């Protein structure tokens, strides 16, 4: 039994500030591919969401507003949908329309790479693609916290 326990696969470590996610890409709703690496040089908020996750749906319009406010300074949001059925994501986007990029990841490759601890989760990546801020869960009162992290990263000089 001890041998079996030793052989058991340990849970992956969740990405923390200072870590860099691996090279990832996923299709958008229109089928075009979005690679995370193409956003290098921008401050990116990777938001994991699903149609069945109520707080995710609260967070999305707020993140969309953040992108509107700071987009010109180089801030962008990528919404990673983890629904197993595309129709569920599309239906939800009809209710919660957002302008930021949405990618579909029904296999859960992205959340596995980030070792997502909860839904929703958001990762703020700096201009070099390194995680600088992690937000698990979402409540309306969390928005100033996310906005402050975005402002901090936008002001940070590369390599600073």
């Amino acid at each position, binding site marked *: 039994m001890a*041998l*079996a*326990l030793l052989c*058991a696969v340990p849970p992956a470590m969740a990405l923390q500030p200072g870590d860099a996610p691996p090279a990832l890409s996923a299709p958008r709703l229109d089928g075009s591919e979005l690679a995370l690496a193409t956003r290098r040089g921008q401050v990116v908020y990777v938001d994991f969401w699903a149609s*069945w996750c109520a707080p995710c749906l609260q967070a999305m319009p707020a993140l969309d507003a953040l992108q509107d406010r700071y987009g010109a300074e180089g801030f962008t949001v990528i919404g990673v949908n*983890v629904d197993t059925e595309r129709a569920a994501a599309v239906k939800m986007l009809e209710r919660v329309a957002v302008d930021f990029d949405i990618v579909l990841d029904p296999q*859960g490759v992205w*959340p596995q790479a980030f070792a997502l601890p909860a839904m929703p989760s958001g990762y703020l990546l700096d201009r070099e693609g390194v995680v600088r801020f992690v937000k698990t869960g979402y409540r309306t009162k969390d928005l100033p916290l996310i906005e402050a992290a975005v402002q901090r990263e936008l002001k940070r000089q590369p390599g600073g």
Partner: protein
Amino acid sequence: MKRTILGAMTVPLALVCSACVTIEPVQPWQRGDLARAEMAFEPDPVQAAYRRHVEFSKEAASGGATLSGGGCGCN
């Protein structure tokens, strides 16, 4: 004899336990099915409220620690 029985039981027990460690926990992003309404303990909120009302005010089977209906069904 005892040792033989113990040894014979250890192997199947180890096999059963080793089967358990292969069960992977449901990850946070895989909980779509668990979040479905029909997976809830009380899927219908209206029916659940009605049941609670019956249990509290008519049957006095649940509810506050000190107060309950008298069984008249009038509250």
